[in-house]
């Protein structure tokens, strides 16, 4: 019998079917409702932006690995997710070249220079977005929904308008938007962030597939809810709170960015503290910051704390309670 034929390795000899690629594919599937919604609210340009962004993210990942003579990693689909999320936090008027530049920063500087997937300590898409704030006018040029911007060419004729979040930052309750409309996504904003309904639909898929747990998003959103309810501006605390939850990138950030495995804590306790920290910082920046939006910086700051939070959240080793009881009985 040919004994050379058998592969020999350490156990376990079977593996779950879930791998990095299938997880990323699930995240992409979960983002599809919001992509469809972005086309509905902002026109075809939103879809083209998302596609350009995803394609450029994959291109930069491929290019870097090729130049560095490392095995290609585009098959894990993580670059696609980064690209989609980066497009999601841009207004539909954003010039394509800026989006591509943002992806170059996200993939090459934030992700690959640190060693590729799993090694970066900050969320690539969010740093990409932070970088794109180098063009402050472009990234805050909001257009009203249902007024599509041309897919190619000039967007100078697009009429700029204020988002509900901008109104909130002036301590005013947005008057022109009803809560249901905001929940569905009928408001100006970044292409992927407006529809809470569609984002939650995708998040439900991720929860059912056990890709994410509720710990981070729930702790995040609940913290924002409690703080905005306790410290309302205006005379309607409940409406103030609801507008804060529904506007800006809170739901997108809480379910799709704060939950990024690589940059968030891995322990249960760590995740809860992290979620609360994201909520605290979001409200802090929204209330006292110069720009209306606080979600992305809140997440980035908490990204930097993940390592520490995992130290705090480290589970108690099996049998420790027996050791403790024994030491107690010896005294």
């Amino acid at each position, binding site marked *: 019998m040919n004994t050379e034929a*058998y592969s020999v390795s350490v*156990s376990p*000899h079977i593996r779950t079917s879930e791998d*990095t690629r299938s997880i990323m594919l699930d995240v992409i599937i979960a983002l599809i409702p919001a992509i469809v919604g972005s086309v509905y609210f902002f026109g075809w340009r939103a879809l083209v932006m998302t596609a350009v962004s995803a394609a450029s993210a994959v291109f930069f990942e491929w290019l870097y690995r090729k130049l560095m003579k490392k095995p290609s990693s585009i098959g894990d689909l993580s670059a696609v997710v980064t690209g989609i999320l980066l497009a999601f936090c841009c207004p539909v008027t954003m010039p394509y070249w800026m989006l591509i530049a943002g992806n170059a920063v996200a993939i090459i500087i934030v992700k690959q220079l640190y060693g590729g997937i799993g090694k970066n300590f900050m969320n690539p898409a969010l740093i990409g977005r932070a970088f794109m704030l180098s063009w402050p006018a472009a990234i805050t040029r909001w257009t009203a929904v249902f007024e599509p911007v041309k897919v190619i060419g000039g967007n100078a004729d697009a009429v700029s308008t204020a988002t509900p979040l901008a109104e909130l930052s002036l301590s005013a309750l947005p008057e022109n938007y009803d809560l249901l409309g905001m929940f569905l996504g009928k408001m100006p904003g970044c292409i992927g962030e407006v529809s809470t309904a569609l984002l939650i639909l995708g998040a439900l898929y991720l929860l059912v597939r056990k890709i994410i747990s509720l710990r981070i998003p729930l702790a995040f959103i609940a913290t924002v809810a409690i703080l905005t309810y306790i410290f309302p501006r205006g005379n309607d605390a409940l409406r103030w709170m609801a507008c804060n939850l529904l506007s800006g990138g809170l739901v997108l950030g809480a379910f799709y960015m704060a939950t990024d495995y690589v940059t968030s804590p891995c*322990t249960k306790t760590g995740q809860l503290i992290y979620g609360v920290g994201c909520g605290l910082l979001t409200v802090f920046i929204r209330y006292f910051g110069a720009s209306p939006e606080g979600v992305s910086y809140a997440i980035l700051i908490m990204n930097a704390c993940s390592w520490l939070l995992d130290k705090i959240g480290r589970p108690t080793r099996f049998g420790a309670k*027996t050791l403790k009881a024994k030491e107690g009985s010896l005294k």
Partner: protein
Amino acid sequence: MPGKFFGGVHPAQNKSDSAKKEIRTPRSPEIVVIPMSMHVGAQCRPLVGKGDYVALGQIIGDSDAPVSAPIHASVSGTVVAVEARPHPSGSRVLSVVIANDFKDTPAGDPDVRTDVSDLSPESIADIIRSAGIVGLGGAAFPTHAKIRSGLGKVDTVIINGAECEPYITSGYRGMLENGDELLGGARIFRKIYGLESVTIAIEDNKADAIRHLKRLLPSSDNSIRIISLKTRYPQGAEKQLIQTVTGRQVPPGGLPADVGCAVFNTDTAAAVYRAVYNGVPLTQKVVTVAGSAVASPVNLRVRIGTPFSELFSACGGFKETPRKIVMGGPMTGLAQHDLSAPVIKGTNCILALSDHECGRAVSERACIRCGRCIEACPMRLMPMLMYAYEQKGDLDELEKLNVTDCIECGCCGYICPGRLHLVQSFKTGKKKLAEKRAKEAAR
């Protein structure tokens, strides 16, 4: 106080192919290769030489060490060699090779007992030792040594029928076909420790085995409690089973006896019964032969020392070329490269796994910090961090993360979407750590 063990995973069971069929006894092999090391503890010294005639059940190897167990001839015939031969561990181990004369000439009249009420715990342990019995669930710790270390400490005996590893059904078939012996063995353990009752714990994927054993038990008999456990891997690991059944946690570096528990496999209990009542030493094993490369998965009752190749032939050979041959379950078993390695006392399963069963390959193995390994770890460790420090060679940090607590159950490696070789890393890490500590102690 029943509890629930931490973590765990739910791999596909893959038990149905072999579970339905009765245990078959194939023709005994021409040659048996009996290694002098088939248990945890000291290796045995061969007591026979080339050319000697040996009888079935004759002691052919023994040791004076407290943790060891004698080894018996599993066939009668002539010793043709005493030399190093391939062993399931992957190395070559001193073995007694016997050419079978197919007469099964017994070594003498067996010590048959009908009443064991006068036997002291020590004398029962002696009988168990002389029958060569070790933990048959796979760990192969000498049973007499386990019994002795627990005398005066144990208030709970658990008979382990979890059989939580995928594919393996040898224990399940044993429960169905040798239920009376199993219950008899359980009563012997009850007597050894002077307990009111013992517990038989079985996972609920073996509901008919639970029903069968309950039927065998007279309704007035309160000495044996049979409980059903919700199926989850690694429920049958000693520490996890104790936690599930009693809620107690064996302390780090400790033994079950430290929390008043003793755990014995169902097959071990049946073997103890046969040794004590019938005077039968351990010379046979029921082995599940399965995996999708096997033509007809089944359970075989074979002589210890039978080469693996004979077991596969008895199941119709391979229907496709296996990618891996594994002794034991797929979560903790040992990959084999040489099919001339024999069935040993701890062998309860051999698998021939095809490509598709071993999991899809990934372009690059990378941790994505998903945290699934932390959630799955039944010992509450942080596998992803342990891996990072082991790769970095930082043994002090590795020790601080309690790598020595790792039971190598494979949950982390099974669940890892980045396909890291986690268990391999921890085995290596533990070894390096032990070497480093030994060096420090020597200085």
